[in-house]
């Protein structure tokens, strides 16, 4: 069936910076060239003067895995306040804003024009459970980053003198075993150190037992990801999250990558100085300056949004430090299977609290000071900075200086004085929003047929109704299509097709398995044969794999 979309103004920055009025032709879920043989379309949709963008892609959002269920356990109030019954022909009931249930997650993302979401913190031992959960997130495509860098096997092999090639093979084996799309490192070495009773780990401090400093873990993993040709660079949650003065660690982490591509996630939480009488200041300008002159570096922001939320992180050291700020006063920590951990702490960001207000401003400073929209992505580190449902408000903050000033006037006065925000006049254009939420994440993740609307692209798109209220415009697009299927109209979900699971499966030398098998046999609580997800498991769970190729240029 051929569908022709007429009348829309297409914002497709891969092709051009401006808007272009052109018809879009769709067949079998893909954008096609207008048929030259004069075949008439089977249906025509008039988009009026709608603004058409490719479906949005969230590069970092905690939507599944054990930590989210722990968050749900702690978030009764959130689930009571934000609940909905079954609706329409296909929509399941659900609940939650900060820790939404799986179906609700898919519906809400799709209704906002998102068509792909990446879970950034899959603990290897939790992979099967995380994928089962993601299979119940409808409509959007999903993918997951496997968390390495605190796994006993890697640390002991690094401590034992393994070469880069062996580590590369291990990383590839792990990506395949866990059906991962990319590799993330969280507080390199720190989660492991926490299990030995250490409450922090500096970048050059030897970790317990194996003596490997975080810098070496980051350098080796960044190189492994690059040499394997994994499209997305090593996704780094830096050490010292949330600590005043941590900008030094963050800049040193960029150095640690030794020029390899590196992505710093939720950079807002890592852009803190320790100046001023409160010992807490913005260092966003320092990071932005560094990012601007380092083409190997990209960041996502992890913007703070005022209000209650849940913080869920693999970084047990940081979460254990933050437990004293738990609101309400309850928290869960977990040490996981000699390969990771998680800490879950409910939290409320308050605009009249100096630190929270400055965190909010620091995030916006990063957005406005980093010049290249291809290397900065819109995230709240959902739900750690705030729920993903607040993205439309964030877009408005970026596109309207007046609105920003209005919000700035309401925050803690000392924070207002401590931020550069007042003087930052930049307003994002629609093309820049399309880059940062579509084209750039697609490019960074190696999704060649996503993030744009050229022939061959997936027919994942959102049509926005132009209006003065930018937040309303981005909250409820007039039309959202996933794979050519109309899935939402005016913010309401009307169809719930199943998305795919995006994976990258690097090749490796099978010899490495001999040593890994021995490690599992001696020390682990699941068997070497049981650990990996079988090829057909995800398809049976309802989320078929969509493998993406590794890059060949620059590989070993």
């Amino acid at each position, binding site marked *: 069936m051929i569908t022709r979309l007429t009348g829309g103004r297409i914002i497709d920055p891969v092709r051009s910076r401006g808007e272009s009025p052109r018809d879009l032709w769709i067949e079998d879920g893909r954008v096609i060239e207008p048929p030259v043989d004069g075949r008439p379309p089977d249906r025509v949709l008039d988009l009026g003067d709608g603004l058409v963008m490719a479906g949005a892609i969230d590069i970092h959002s905690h939507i599944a895995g054990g930590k989210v269920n722990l968050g749900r356990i702690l978030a009764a109030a959130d689930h009571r306040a934000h609940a909905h019954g079954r609706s329409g022909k296909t929509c399941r009931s659900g609940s939650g804003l900060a820790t939404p249930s799986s179906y609700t997650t898919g519906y809400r993302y799709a209704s906002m024009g998102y068509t792909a979401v990446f879970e950034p913190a899959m603990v290897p031992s939790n992979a*099967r459970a995380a994928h089962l959960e993601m299979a119940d997130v409808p409509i959007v495509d999903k993918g997951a980053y496997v968390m390495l860098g605190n796994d006993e096997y890697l640390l002991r092999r690094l401590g034992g003198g393994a070469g880069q090639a062996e580590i590369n093979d291990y990383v590839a084996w792990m990506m395949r075993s866990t059906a991962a799309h990319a590799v993330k490192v969280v507080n390199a070495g720190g989660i492991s150190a926490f299990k030995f*009773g250490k409450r922090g780990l500096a970048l050059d401090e030897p970790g317990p037992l194996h003596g490997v400093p975080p810098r070496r873990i980051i350098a080796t993993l960044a190189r492994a990801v690059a040499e394997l040709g994994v499209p997305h660079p090593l996704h780094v949650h830096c050490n010292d999250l949330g600590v005043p003065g941590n900008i030094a660690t963050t800049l040193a982490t960029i150095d640690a990558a030794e020029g390899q591509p590196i992505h710093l996630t939720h950079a807002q939480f890592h852009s803190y100085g320790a100046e001023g009488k409160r010992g807490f200041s913005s260092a966003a300008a320092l990071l932005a300056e560094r990012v601007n002159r380092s083409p190997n570096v990209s960041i996502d922001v992890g913007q703070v949004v005022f209000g209650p939320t849940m913080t869920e992180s693999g970084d047990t050291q940081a979460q254990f430090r933050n437990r004293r700020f738990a609101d309400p006063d309850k928290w869960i920590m977990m040490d996981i299977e000699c390969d990771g951990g998680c800490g879950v702490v409910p939290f409320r960001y308050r605009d009249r609290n100096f630190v929270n207000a400055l965190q909010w401003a620091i995030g916006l400073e990063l957005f406005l000071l980093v010049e290249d929209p291809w290397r900065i992505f819109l995230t709240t580190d959902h739900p750690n900075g705030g729920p993903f449902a607040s993205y439309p408000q964030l877009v408005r903050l970026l596109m309207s200086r007046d609105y920003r000033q209005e919000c700035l006037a309401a925050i803690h006065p000392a924070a207002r004085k401590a931020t550069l925000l007042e003087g930052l006049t930049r307003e994002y254009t629609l093309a820049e929003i399309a880059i940062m939420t579509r084209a750039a994440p697609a490019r960074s993740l190696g999704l060649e047929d996503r993030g744009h609307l050229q022939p061959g692209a997936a027919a994942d798109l959102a049509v926005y109704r132009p209006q003065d209220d930018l937040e309303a415009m981005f909250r409820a697009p007039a039309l959202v299509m996933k794979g050519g299927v109309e899935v939402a109209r005016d913010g309401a979900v009307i169809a719930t097709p199943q998305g795919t699971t995006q994976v990258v499966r690097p090749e490796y030398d099978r010899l490495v398995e001999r040593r890994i098998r021995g490690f599992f046999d001696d020390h682990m609580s699941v068997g070497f044969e049981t650990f990996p997800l079988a090829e057909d*498991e995800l398809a049976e769970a309802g989320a078929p794999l969509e493998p993406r190729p590794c890059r060949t240029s620059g590989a070993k």
Partner: protein
Amino acid sequence: MLALADRVGGIVDHSFSPLLLANMAVARTSGWVTATFAEVANRADAILVVGGDPGPRFPRFRERLVANAHPLYRQHPPEVLYVGPREEVLDASCAALVAREELLDALGLLAMLVCGMPAKRPLQHPAALALEAIAARLAAAHYAAIVWDVAAFLPGEAEYGVELISAMLRGLNAKTRCVGLPLGGSGNGIGAMQAALWQTGWPLPVGLTADAPVHDPQLFSGSRRIAAGEADVLVWVAALTSDAPPPGALPVIAIVADDIDLPEPPAVEIRVGIPAIDHAGAIFRADTVIALPLRPARPSARPTVADAAKAILASLPEAS
């Protein structure tokens, strides 16, 4: 089954959920610190067992978590500590033996000692010396683990007992490391809890009302509803366990494995295969993080429970 219940406005519960709810209630209201099997097996240098010998219900507990041959971090087998009934004496280096009725008292005193709360000396408790020694060893351990099974508490006492354990875990981690390991999860009760949490936002039992999913352990208790006849129909699912539906006045739709005898003919009988024998699946371990794959052991044409639920869903009149 959750989709089916959502469609018809049903309640979903698991027959083992009463054994998980005390833990769930404490996790929800206070939180805690826990670990998975491999952490305890490789790291714990002291293991405090609360309430009774895990052996009878968890026969591989000792082999897998205490006497494992190649621990990564601990130099010696862990010191086993015990607070529990004297009729279930464990092979422990330090044991506070109490009557089961006195378990909460002993745990309460231990929690005070562990958390450094002031107590009048000398302590007025028959097991005071042992409890003080246990508290000292937990504090001195590099990585202690506290292991319990909710079934070991007297009815009505489990939640308070687990609350005391949670207080100890929070207190001990301020200075050293100590983790909890709640045992349980038979019949894939943990998997049912996990799926309910992610699909509805709530643990079991959950009522899928027209307006919203609602968690209410009393109102939606499956066993209470069955006993009181407070439902239109009981859909009884047993593929992993071999339990026949409990007797009651409700009409029954039985979705059960081949080998289950049904003493009373149900209104509708659907025979299904058994996971890991007839078809694939996944089962969650007690530590909640790890799902193990189940792979079929024989070719089988038997439908799965999910097949049955989908077929029932498909034959219902179109939802409005």
